[in-house]
């Protein structure tokens, strides 16, 4: 899923693209061009990112909607349509970050239960895969949000380190530092999991 990342270039002024053709029969001629195409092309990738990040099918669906509502409002300012994918991913990561922070805060304030990863993990063939996913996301749930984002974008979404930095809006050194911290914590906790599992009846 790695991609040649370009930073989205946004024009400063809200200039309508001069002479841009409107599709004939468009129900709303004032609508910016290409949102539907953009959605059909990129929504699956945004959904995958959402699922990897949030581990909830419903929240991932909501995230897709939120991302494209924002994209729809701002698409006129997207000068380079080729940069659409990283632009959408950046929006998705920001929104996912907000959701993860809110989730943590809610759990902290209201002593909420741990998320149930069974819903998502149930589609995996073998029970051992289900267990692995539960273990992994159990560990990720305990990480600070920024570390979790770094880890997921790098390892589940398979982005390069530079892309992690660009998509998350960090410098390369910050991305490296966060990723290393996340990797160390994930490795340490996953190594501890089998011992805990064995101790259970």
């Amino acid at each position, binding site marked *: 899923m790695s991609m040649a990342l370009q930073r989205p270039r946004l024009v400063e002024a809200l200039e309508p693209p001069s002479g841009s053709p409107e599709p004939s029969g468009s129900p709303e001629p004032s609508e910016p061009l290409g949102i*539907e195409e953009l*959605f*059909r092309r990129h*929504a*699956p990738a945004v*959904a*995958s990112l959402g*699922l*990897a990040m949030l581990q909830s*099918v419903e929240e*991932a*669906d909501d995230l*897709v*909607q939120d991302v*494209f*509502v924002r994209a*729809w409002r701002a698409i006129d300012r997207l000068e380079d349509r080729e940069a659409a994918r990283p632009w959408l991913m950046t929006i998705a990561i920001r929104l996912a970050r907000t959701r993860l922070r809110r989730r943590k805060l809610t759990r902290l304030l209201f002593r909420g239960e741990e998320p149930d990863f069974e819903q*998502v*993990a149930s*589609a*995996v*063939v*073998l029970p*051992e*895969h289900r267990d*692995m*996913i539960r*273990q*992994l*996301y159990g560990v990720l749930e305990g990480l600070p949000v920024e570390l979790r984002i770094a880890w997921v974008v790098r*390892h*589940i979404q*398979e982005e390069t380190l530079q892309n992690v930095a660009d998509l998350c809006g960090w410098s390369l050194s910050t991305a490296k530092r966060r990723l290393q911290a996340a990797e160390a914590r*994930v*490795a340490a906790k*996953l190594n501890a*999991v*089998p011992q805990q599992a064995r101790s259970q009846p």
Partner: protein
Amino acid sequence: MTQQQHIEAARRQVRLHAWGEHRVEAAWHELTLRRARDQATHRRVRTFGGPLLAMAAVFALAITAWRSLTPSTSSNPEAAEEAGVERVSLGEGTDVRVEKGARVEVRERETDRVVVDVKTGLARFRVRHDPTRVFRVHAGDVEVEDLGTTFDVENKAGMVRVKVTEGSVKVSFPGADGDARGKVLLEAGESGVYPAVRQVTAPPGGSAEAPPPPSSSGDAPSNPPEAVATWRELARIGKHKRAYDLVAPGNFRDVRDEPGDLLLASDVARLSRHSKDAASLLRRFLANHSRDPRAPSAAFTLGWVLMNELGRPREAAVAFARAEALAPRGNLAEDAVARAVEAWYRAGDLSRAKTEVERYRKTYPQGRHLSTLERLIGME
């Protein structure tokens, strides 16, 4: 288990949930509905220009509307028709916004019963629920009963659109050709369009959502057009249980024998946990549309339902084999063979499971399931 195995499992899980064409379509539909809602809200805010103007306008309109909508002591209720948006208070946290050009009458206003008639145009209701009071809106022959909510009723061109923003409403609408009235419960985020008067004949041309009933089943009662539209509408926004409740009682008669419709209905059944119905619809799809490009995916889903939800692994193995046969080089083929192994294993037929593992090994020597499948069989 290494960290890499955990990562692979998580990646695989994300791949398994990858959106297909169908899901994209549904989500796009949902997005356009949401966008339309947002734009309507934005337009309303923009109309007033600024906070002072807005306050003055609302105040003036409220006064005007109060005078227009409060039922008079005479037998003929006073009608309201204003140039702009009006906000009409009906007391105790209940009000109506009457949009430009709309005509609304308050027919009854008692302590235990309020009845408002939307003659034409759009009215937006915000109603505080009071269990001791009936709050009902009439629009043509359509009745909307509030259950504590915010909702819009638009009576236009012989059709009544009801859209619920918060809470829920009960809608009762005329059936077609003398059928009993249809009833539906709409919840937040849902909407429906209903004929304002009884349909004596089929609607001219019909809509894409409401085809006339097949001529071969003339004795079967035809569902009201909106009931047909509603299950698809609900399905597309992910309200599968409610969609199922609408379409299943008619034994799925409203489901057209078209690939898209059958798949949508099978999703409704499957995702509302009615696996038998899902399997039946998927079988119907495969029987009638095996050349459709979505057939391999349908066969694979059928196998999944049979194996994991209905506990029929032998039939599941056959379905997985069919998924592979329909697209031997498709992106589901490898998974289909692997799942067939699992299905035969679960059915207790170890020799067939082993045969399938051998076949998998030959076809996919570097296959990602190979070690798992070998371990599965080796466990025996």
